[in-house]
């Protein structure tokens, strides 16, 4: 067993996990985190995405031990004091979700992209989203939502 101490959505947590357990497994089945979703466990759909020190990662492909001493932010950790972030508001205004299951990956990928560059090109948006699968929306409203935030 390894002891892992990290910051999760603004609060410190300490867990004990087997060395081969994934971050997803720890977040979901040990800590009951509702804002990561099991989509494939194969690193393709992005429903399990989190930000680790600001960078998007598939939690299903991340060993839990990797986040020791780091900061993990899930979709639920974005809104501060109940105030939705501009990205979240843009997704609502542009009807950018249907079943909602892919949202952790879509929104965190969008946030990481816009944190890195405030004026991403269409190609950069498509590239960033290429690791996020959605079966409901056909992506158009998601891209539309992100583009409203491009200055």
């Amino acid at each position: 067993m390894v002891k892992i101490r990290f910051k999760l959505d603004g609060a410190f947590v300490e867990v004990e996990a087997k060395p081969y357990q994934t971050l997803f497994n720890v977040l979901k089945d040990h800590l009951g985190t509702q804002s990561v979703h099991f989509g494939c466990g194969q690193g393709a759909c992005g429903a399990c995405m989190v930000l680790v020190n600001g960078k998007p990662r598939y939690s299903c492909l991340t060993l839990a031990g990797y986040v020791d001493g780091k900061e993990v932010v899930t979709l639920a950790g974005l809104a501060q004091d109940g105030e939705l972030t501009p990205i979240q508001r843009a997704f609502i205004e542009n009807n950018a979700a249907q079943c909602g299951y892919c949202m952790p990956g879509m929104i965190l990928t969008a946030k990481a992209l816009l944190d890195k560059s405030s004026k991403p090109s269409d190609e950069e948006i498509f590239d960033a989203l290429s690791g996020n699968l959605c079966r409901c929306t056909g992506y158009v409203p998601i891209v539309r939502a992100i583009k409203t935030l491009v200055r």
Partner: protein
Amino acid sequence: MAQFSVLGKPLVNVQLYGHVTGTTQYIDDISFPGMLWIKAVRSPVPRGVIKKIDTEDAERLPGVVKIITAKDVPNNLHVNMAVVGIGPPDEPVLPDKEVNYKGEVICLVVARDEETALKATQLVNVEIEELPPVLDMEEALKPSSPKIKPWNSNTFTFGSGMDGATPPGGQGRPYFLIKRGNVDEAFKKARHIVEGSYLVPPIEHAPIEPHVCVVKPEADGKLTIYTATQAPYFVRDNVATILNMPPSKIRVVSPAVGGGFGGKVDPEFEMMVAVAAVTVKKPVKWRWTREEEFTVSTTRPAVKIEIQDAISGDGLILGRKARLLHDAGAYSRTSPYGVIKACFNLSGPYHIPNVEYRGYCVFTNRQPSSAMRGYGVFEVSFAVELQMEKNAKTIGMDPFEFRFKNAYRNNQISASGKLIDDAYIIETMKEAAALAGINLPAHLLSMSSQG
């Protein structure tokens, strides 16, 4: 145009607040104290006879609570479509004699956590005597093919009351039949006869949320089934029959579902989780892997459609013959319903006065197929629209013109004898052409669905 005060307004989807904050609750978020996990031992071969299931080593693994086999299922028959009159039921919940598709569940491991359950499945020894599988639909129809159904054929019998459509007592056939007018006469009168053969292979719904189910035995002997389903009452009725429990003792709850697309209509696994829960008397959870979604969960059927059209000198389809083969996979599920629905749509949005359509529901040793978005009609629309294109090309007519001429209009009668009163394909095509900047000739623009 009617004036509505609320209908038609683009209100914001109230679910979005939960979705963008990660607070929408899905079945995977449901958990209870003492909850156990299920993993399945699955058949490695597409067809065979089960000789032995040895669970001793698996049972000894610390953390394993119970191995569930066929003998633990009170009423070991899926009854999915019996509620709509389709039968006979041909699929066990857990097989004890034979397996009919690669991945078919043989037994379930119930354990304290997912990892232990998975380890235990690898310790279960199953001996299966392999048999040659039937995989090709045309081969399956041949008299020489091995028969994989207990009624000694590879087709479903339509026409005699077991298909959820026709009354009992009729002549049973290996195909569903639609016949109107006189196709032979039409083919004799034709200037052109155009044939085509079209194939759509199995396609997977792949919602981002896989199948997930938690069954909780309640203190008063009832069961609560939390499952990502599109049809809660289907689950309730099926589980009740399989567990020999009155439906009134079963409650099914399905809050937000992460996409269905027809893949969560058949109760595929809730009854297995329910059997486990009732046997171990604890809450039990089963979350399918993405591999299981692709290799075992229902898919769109593979459908092969052969069409022959008899076309007049002025470009009207006088008659159509069609032969449709629908790959049900190993078990019926909703396939008989899908075949019938498909056949009713083989004329497309066109007026064809003489038709003969035969739809076969063919069994093969692959994962069972079932409903997927556009059930029965996705494949038919593909075939019909390619056929229309081929027709137009053969007789040298513009593809839009050919469709306009043959489009159905109100007060015509469909292939199933129904009076058409909601025809609108002509107007829809006009709008699409306008959107694409195509200037249709005046004689087409003057046509309408009113006649």
